[in-house]
């Protein structure tokens, strides 16, 4: 008897995305997304003197900038997938832990050489052509900042 393990196309796209994430391959991460894919990281806010920048927009805009910046600031940034849940409509929820050591400034956090490890929840929508059409992530950025030695809110 042959048992064939068939991974759903949705889970396959999600796995490929996080494989690229693990390799810090921003170009491939972007390539796995639709050209107009939405990007939403609500915890990530950059507060300036005159304006507040939120990480909400498009993958090919703010998303690419955020990912490139993260990999630059955390050269050993690593993702460990805990669980992937999907549905037939192409939606996926991914529980994962991100961890890394800071080597360059990130947001309002100066580089003190400290490490973090934080649980994340990624929400992803895969379109009919097996590319991501939206990607959101939720985590406690306050905990990340504290682990990095940054205790000011802004």
């Amino acid at each position, binding site marked *: 008897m042959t048992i064939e393990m068939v991974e759903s196309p949705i889970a396959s796209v999600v796995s490929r995305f996080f494989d690229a994430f693990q390799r810090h391959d921003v170009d491939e991460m972007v390539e796995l997304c639709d050209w107009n894919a939405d990007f939403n990281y609500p915890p990530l*806010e950059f507060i300036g003197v005159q304006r507040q920048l939120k990480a909400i927009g498009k993958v090919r805009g703010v998303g690419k900038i955020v990912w490139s910046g993260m990999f630059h600031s955390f050269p050993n940034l690593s993702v460990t997938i805990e669980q992937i849940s*999907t549905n037939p409509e192409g939606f996926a929820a991914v529980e994962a832990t991100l961890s890394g050591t800071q080597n360059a400034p990130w947001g309002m956090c100066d580089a003190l050489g400290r490490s973090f490890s934080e649980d994340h929840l990624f929400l992803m929508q895969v379109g009919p052509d097996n590319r991501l059409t939206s990607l959101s992530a939720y985590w406690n950025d306050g905990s990340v900042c504290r682990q990095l030695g940054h205790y000011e809110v802004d």
Partner: protein
Amino acid sequence: MIGNRERVIDELIKGIESGSPDAITPRVNSATVVRAPALGLDSSGVEAVRTLLSCDPIALSEAHCEVNQVRELSESRSIVEFALRGSYSTDAAHSIPVDVRVDHAWLIKEEAGLLSQISAYWCSNQLARQAGSRTTSAVEIMSGSSI
């Protein structure tokens, strides 16, 4: 006809908005796993659910959930993505209550009409920033809990 999953989600949201964990306690038992990284909470049982729903960042005055989306997933799991609005004050500092809006995503699992898992994600800095706190540690001291 409303299924168990929809009913449980509806009651959970009502529990958040009412600030009363009692609204949802009939749907939980000792096996209910509760995780909330922003609280450092990783426990199970009715008390864990009470801790989650009665913590300062959730039990806002005049709390209201603006549900962005509810998605059903495999194995009886669902995602509820919402913005929690309400009034928040750090009482120990005698501060004036401010209106806050914090983005949430909760992964829940329903089995036979009971909640078997709640994984609640939000960012403590988002709340602290809107509450006018200068440091995250200051907010924790004032609120008596980690947000």
